[in-house]
């Protein structure tokens, strides 16, 4: 299939194209330099054209989602719509069913989503779910931060063995990268405890979070993986947690970035996720305030880290994370129903509904801190747009966040009209921030930066040779002021005029016209096969003794993957 998108206003930060009127040529699912004049023309005159969106951190598949859907049937009844000739029936708001997840991302012009927490033990199921999420490609990150083998290697500083273990378990779980959640804390939860601060030890392992994080970062760079370590630091959601965040990120400065080919795309050695939840000052919720300025200042002066925000959206949502002790803390505060899911020898997750009301002080503080971080971090390439779906809000609210970022008057209106609690201006500096994102910045934080952070070399840009993943929005920036029309911005980014995935038009004027199978993206480490075999033999006695399932059934075989893309990392 060949066609040209004619006369669009193109925003492609990876190629430094800022609103130029251009034609984009598509052939056989790829973007090409040019095509003959007689090819099919799709007129997108004076419409915004961007690469399809890339979500760098969301929870869209896996065991937590299943528990959430099972114990929150009331969420499933929200957002119900009947099947059409193209779509299956939709259901769910904060934890939509799998096909619905794909449809909704597609309507917003997204093409790729990172599933941010996949326990290796539950990887088979995660991939089975990914296979049913239509229209978006998914790269799942494997959880390593509380893995018993990892903690042993970290304590003994056996970095090469750890690297071999990571290579083997990325292959076994078909994971894309290394995810660390509350290192040592989720293990401590097995004993009803948590760790506090960066130098607290996991019970019975005699290893600190610092040791685990640094060991994993070194191993990650030793392998030269396309993505850096992806960390959810300790003390999430606790007032006064920002020193832990800065301690954690500061420690990474000693890590030398890999020069291997797969790692070349990215600049960072650590990606910090949902930074909003880690930027709180004060000592308790009574005196909690924003530490966004301190955290943003740190981010601005470093060149080895990136982050996503986890912006609160004022919705009733479902929180779910492999930080089980934090979820228990949330349960104690809210009293809402709580579920816990232990993954033997690897991690522990918790799930609890959460109502982020604009009338409550804490939710408003969180909302304002998220926006402060967006506005105080100078370089948009260091920050990505997320809600940590569904934890701070469902991903369908991305357009609303974009409207807040593009309109300072709208933010002030919310504060001055009392739409949000007074903590928004009494305990944060949001009211004094006048910065507004433009379309180029928005394209950066939703497309180019997330793709670069994840080391993608086939998406996130409109470079010839890249996948033809394209979004067209019905806005003309030349005669439209987003600052004065936030509702229109939200509407336009909610319903893409065109969503194109691998050259196929999936969405027209907000309606799905086709669906396609997703690509399941994983990282295939090459060159460490001998070390992988050795380490697997080494762990086998322990695995056989302590795991409740057999090694043969633990592994994810190729037939579990939907149209897999194996990104090769040449480790030697």
């Amino acid at each position, binding site marked *: 299939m060949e066609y040209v998108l004619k006369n669009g206003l193109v925003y492609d930060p990876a190629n430094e194209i800022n609103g130029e009127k251009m034609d984009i040529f598509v052939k056989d699912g790829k973007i090409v330099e040019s095509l003959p004049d007689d090819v099919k023309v799709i007129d997108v005159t004076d419409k915004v054209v961007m690469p399809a969106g890339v979500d760098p951190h969301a929870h869209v598949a896996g065991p937590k989602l299943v528990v959430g859907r099972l*114990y929150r049937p009331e969420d499933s009844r929200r957002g119900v719509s009947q099947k059409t000739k193209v779509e299956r029936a939709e259901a769910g708001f904060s934890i939509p069913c799998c096909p619905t997840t794909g449809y909704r991302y597609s309507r917003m012009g997204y093409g790729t989503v990172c599933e941010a927490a996949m326990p290796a033990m539950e990887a088979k199921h995660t991939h089975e779910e990914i296979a049913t999420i239509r229209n978006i490609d998914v790269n799942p990150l494997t959880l390593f931060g509380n893995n018993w083998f990892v903690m042993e290697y970290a304590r003994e500083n056996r970095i090469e063995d750890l690297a071999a273990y990571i290579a083997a378990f990325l292959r076994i779980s078909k994971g894309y990268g290394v995810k660390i959640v509350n290192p040592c804390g989720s293990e401590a939860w097995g004993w009803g405890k948590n760790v506090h601060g960066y130098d607290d030890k996991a019970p019975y392992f005699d290893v600190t979070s610092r040791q685990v994080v640094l060991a994993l970062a070194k191993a990650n760079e030793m392998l030269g993986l396309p993505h850096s370590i992806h960390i959810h630091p300790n003390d999430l959601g606790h007032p006064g947690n920002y020193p832990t965040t800065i301690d954690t990120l500061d420690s990474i400065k000693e890590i030398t970035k890999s020069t291997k080919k797969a790692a070349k795309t990215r600049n960072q050695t650590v990606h910090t996720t949902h930074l909003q939840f880690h930027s709180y000052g004060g000592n308790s919720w009574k005196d909690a305030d924003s530490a966004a300025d301190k955290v943003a200042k740190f981010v601005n002066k470093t060149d080895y880290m990136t982050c996503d925000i986890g912006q609160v959206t004022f919705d009733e949502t479902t929180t779910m994370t492999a930080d089980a002790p934090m979820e228990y803390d949330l349960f104690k505060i809210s009293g809402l129903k709580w579920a816990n899911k232990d993954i033997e020898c690897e991690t522990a997750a918790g799930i609890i509904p959460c109502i982020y009301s604009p009338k409550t002080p804490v939710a408003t503080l969180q909302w304002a801190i998220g926006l402060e971080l967006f506005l105080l971090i100078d370089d948009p390439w260091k920050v990505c747009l997320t809600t940590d779906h569904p934890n701070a809000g469902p991903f369908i609210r991305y357009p609303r966040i974009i409207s807040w970022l593009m309109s300072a008057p709208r933010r002030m209106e919310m504060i001055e009209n009392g739409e949000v609690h007074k903590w928004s201006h009494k305990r944060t500096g949001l009211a004094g921030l006048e910065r507004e994102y433009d379309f180029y910045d928005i394209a950066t934080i939703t497309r180019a930066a997330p793709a670069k952070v994840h080391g993608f070399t086939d998406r996130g840009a409109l470079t010839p040779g890249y996948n033809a993943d394209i979004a067209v929005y019905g806005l003309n920036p030349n005669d439209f002021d987003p600052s004065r029309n936030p509702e229109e911005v939200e509407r336009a980014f909610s319903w893409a005029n065109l969503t194109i995935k691998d050259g196929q038009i999936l969405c027209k004027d907000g309606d799905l016209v086709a669906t396609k199978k997703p690509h399941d993206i994983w990282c295939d480490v090459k060159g460490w096969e001998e070390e992988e075999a050795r380490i697997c033999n080494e762990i086998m006695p322990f695995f056989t003794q302590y795991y409740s399932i057999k090694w043969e059934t633990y592994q994810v075989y190729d037939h579990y993957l939907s149209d897999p893309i194996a990104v090769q990392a040449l480790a030697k």
Partner: protein
Amino acid sequence: MKIITFNQKKTSKIALEFDEIVPNTVMDWTKENWDAYQVPIGNSRFPITDFFDIEIEGEADSPSQVKMVLNGDYGRVKYIGFRMTDGEIEVNSNADLHAGAEMSGGLVTVHGNVEAHAGREMSGGKLEIMGNTKEFTGASYIGEWRGMTGGEIIVHGNAGKQCGECLTGGKIHVLGDCDILAGIHMTKGTIEIDGNVNRWPGGQMKNGNIIIHGKVGRLLEGFVEQDIVTDPEVDGVTYPGRYIEYKGDIALNGKGTLLIDAEKNRDRLSTWIEEDDEYNAIRVYRNQ
């Protein structure tokens, strides 16, 4: 007044769904509209005229002037009166699940029994059931923590399990008996039960009132006896007689009120003195 009468022609084994057919949506519908309308059945739709002869009489300027009369067997018709805001629906048979669910105004009368979830999450209006209801009358949707928030449900027969679950407002009056866990998780509103209650009324209630005129099978440990009260007044209504008053459920630091008929539940008291000053005597006995 506009009266829309449904006369059933045939039934369906798979339930029909009437969630789109309430006075506020069909007020202006003509015969042509009804002929064109397809009613949901399972994952498909079929012409409603395959199942009903529909007669329309009179005119209406507002939904309050619309009355739907359903004749036949509606035991396999779900969502009758769903999200109704005004007007009246009279069902001359049994009704299936979710009758009166999420209604905010108007009147639904069912001259028969109703399946589970009757009056679920209703916020206004009145649902009157002449027969029995099954589980979750006036309750929340499964998993939800807010049930009925306003309006009134009257059940002339018996109510099933977890009647008034998560009640957050309004009143439920059961003239017959009630199964276990009436008012579980309730935070506001009133449940009045004329008959007997199987077990555990008010489990984990945080606030609100339950008045039971019959015999209570078993109470949860979280209810603390307060006193014996005469002619108590709840929300401006006086309930004549003598009641044992409990507060609970203390397991959740709840402050709900549970009033149970003192005479019918005298076995809960260690002694019973048939004298004029019996209540004072009981109080004295308790304080010893």
